């Protein structure tokens, strides 16, 4: 299944969404929060991109900015460009944006009730947009809605379409919302933590559903999550965010094989894996994420980074290309990348490399020595 996903991205090399140096700031009592602080990325047609990062890293604000839904005030787009299917979104009128949102870009939120009106039968909520946006007759729209409910796995859709949202369980509501999001056959589906509120067996159902629909309809998908496991199973590429910035972006396999950013290494080593027992101790990322209401002149990860050098707190690292299509915003990106600190690296090895990195730069021969040591 995965293999045909990859081949699809290889063929579809044209870009659907392009974001350049996006900046979204909020005015708060504590000062100006730089929620998104110069983010750039691209989404290709048919591609699934995962956005990971911890709470407050700007994942949602970034996507909401693209959709033109930032509440203003307190928010404002302080700079950047967003191009969707050849059109400029930041300069688009409210009317144009509304039509794009209902038609070409759909969203699924963590909380389905935020998109469903509790007082309306789901039939009305599904059918009306079809009538207005696609000009279908009421009967046609109803049939189409029933077919979509069936497709997302709602049993007895013909009867259940006339029920109210509260008559559905959490997992079912999420399915209804997905059906709603897909009815207009969008070019891009943005799923913001689509399964965080669900139990793991229901999460598996929903993720399989999104994967299947993506394969059938060829929709591009952005999945926002804090769970690396979720994106490991479905994303072609992954964007790692921290403090409103992109830390690393690369193909999913590469990210887990040899990450190019110390923060990504930290995430991989601090998350327990079901397939490993408790023989390995976790390496926590010490400290906590920075306050984005204060200006951060250098690298936002510096206070927690084992690799930090004096330059890191002064100068902001740009995105360096460590391998084709693999970029990392770190002054020591190529050293980190070379060290191969991905999922296969043991806790002991990562700890040793980080110790060495704290003392000075790391080269191939040091790594070779370390691995020889480890084997003996």
């Amino acid at each position, binding site marked *: *299944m*995965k293999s045909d996903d990859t081949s699809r991205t290889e063929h579809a090399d044209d870009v659907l969404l392009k974001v350049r140096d996006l900046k979204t700031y909020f005015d708060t009592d504590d000062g100006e929060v730089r929620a998104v602080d110069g983010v750039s990325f691209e989404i290709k047609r048919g591609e699934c991109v995962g956005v990971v990062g*911890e*709470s407050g890293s700007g994942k949602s604000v970034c996507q909401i900015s693209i959709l033109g839904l930032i509440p203003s005030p307190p928010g404002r787009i302080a700079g950047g460009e967003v191009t969707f299917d050849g059109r400029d979104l930041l300069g688009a009128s409210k009317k144009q944006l509304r039509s794009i949102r209902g038609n070409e870009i759909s969203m699924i939120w963590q909380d389905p009730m935020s998109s469903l009106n509790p007082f309306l039968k789901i039939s009305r909520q599904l059918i009306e947009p079809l009538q207005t946006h696609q000009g279908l007759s009421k009967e046609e729209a109803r049939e189409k809605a029933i077919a979509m409910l*069936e*497709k997302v*796995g709602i*049993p*007895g859709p013909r009867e*259940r379409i006339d*029920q109210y949202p*509260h*008559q*559905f*369980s959490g*997992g*079912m509501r999420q399915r209804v919302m997905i059906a709603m999001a897909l009815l207009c056959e969008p070019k891009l589906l943005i799923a913001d933590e689509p399964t965080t509120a669900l*139990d*793991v*067996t*229901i*999460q*598996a*159902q929903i*993720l*399989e*559903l999104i994967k*299947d*629909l993506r394969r*059938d309809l060829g929709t591009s998908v952005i999945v926002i999550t*804090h*769970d*690396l*496991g979720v994106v*490991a*199973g479905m994303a072609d590429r992954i964007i790692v965010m921290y403090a409103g910035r992109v830390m690393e972006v690369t193909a*999913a*396999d590469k990210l*887990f094989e040899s990450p190019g950013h110390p923060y990504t290494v*930290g*995430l*991989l080593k*601090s*998350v*327990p*894996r*079901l*397939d*490993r*027992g*408790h023989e390995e*101790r*976790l*390496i*926590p*990322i*010490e400290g*906590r*994420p920075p306050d984005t209401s204060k200006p951060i002149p250098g690298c936002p990860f510096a206070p927690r980074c084992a690799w930090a050098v004096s330059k890191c707190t002064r100068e902001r690292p740009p995105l360096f290309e460590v391998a084709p299509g693999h970029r990392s915003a770190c002054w020591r990106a190529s050293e980190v990348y070379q060290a191969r600190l991905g*999922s296969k690296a043991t806790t002991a090895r990562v700890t040793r490399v980080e110790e060495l990195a704290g003392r000075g730069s790391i080269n191939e021969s040091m790594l070779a020595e370390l691995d020889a040591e480890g084997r003996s």
Partner: protein
Amino acid sequence: MAETLLTIENLKMHFPVYRGALVRREVNRVRAVDGLSFDIYEGETLGLVGESGCGKSTTGRSIIQLYRPTEGKVVFDGKNLCDLPENELHPLRRDLQMIFQDPYGSLNPRMTVGDIIAEPLKVHKLASGKAARERVQELMEIVGLDPRFIRRYPHEFSGGQRQRIGIARALACEPRFIVCDEPISALDVSIQAQIMNLMEDLQNEFNLTYLFIAHDLAAVRHISDRIAVMYLGKMAELADGRQIYDNPLHPYTEALISAVPIPDPEVEKTRQRIVLEGDVPSPLNPPSGCVFHTRCPYAWERCAMEVPRFEQAEPGHYVACHLIDEPMRRERVKGAKAGATSEKAASPATPSSSPASPPPDAERSEEVSA
């Protein structure tokens, strides 16, 4: 073999459901915990997993008598806690503590950190005045909080720090057993490892026994020696962490394990995912026979009629499933499924409704109260 610290026998906790505005009458009962039997060994971490609402918190609370169970026994130090009146229970409560999921809600916002941590010392008359303050400072040091913050209020701390306050409070009177109810669920991913490592260190240092409740199976596997899997108020399976992962015997455990995503695309590519159909039924009217039969891929007639007993299938490996008597059924169904997968991959997957999926939640609108 480690000593048994707690023996739980046929533990039940039912919450009555009332209806009627004028004449309130009990119309039903939520069988939140419905007949659990297991031991907890001294010094171990027993992980408890299961889906939302399956009764994990209720189990933890019933064991340490925050709820007085409807039925059953909890034997600790040779005494059945369920039989003891509150005055006899009080001195034992020292030994049985709890850490809560919500580091925000579980700390009184109007008390200083010092007072919060000292509270159990006062309740159990273990220390007061200067001695209490010194003990609090020592505890703060132990859990990695700066003792100079003793006069601060909970809102001045981050989520991870608040969880440390909760841990310090639980440690204050040197307990032997701590129920950790989702202690990391509300924390950022990068902070979860800090707290898990702290809990492991404290366990080694003070020979603590944990009941570690979480819905995150990977975290539970990481921290636990043994793992108990619950479904709808019942124990489905209990075994060593490795046995649970390598050789799950209960179909629900098998599905649960296959559903947990693993942060490694290479592993994910080759994994077989068992996608369960349907939703978790309501504990207000649990299915007959085996409570899992409405979603179980292996269920047959017997499953709807007869409740499976929770029995030892292999040394130290307990399970409640009729397949133990007829293991061939599992292989047959698996063989049939394997044949069908190629077909399924070709057509868009349309999860069908399970025949016994619950009716559209008539019971959801009922009033539930304790």
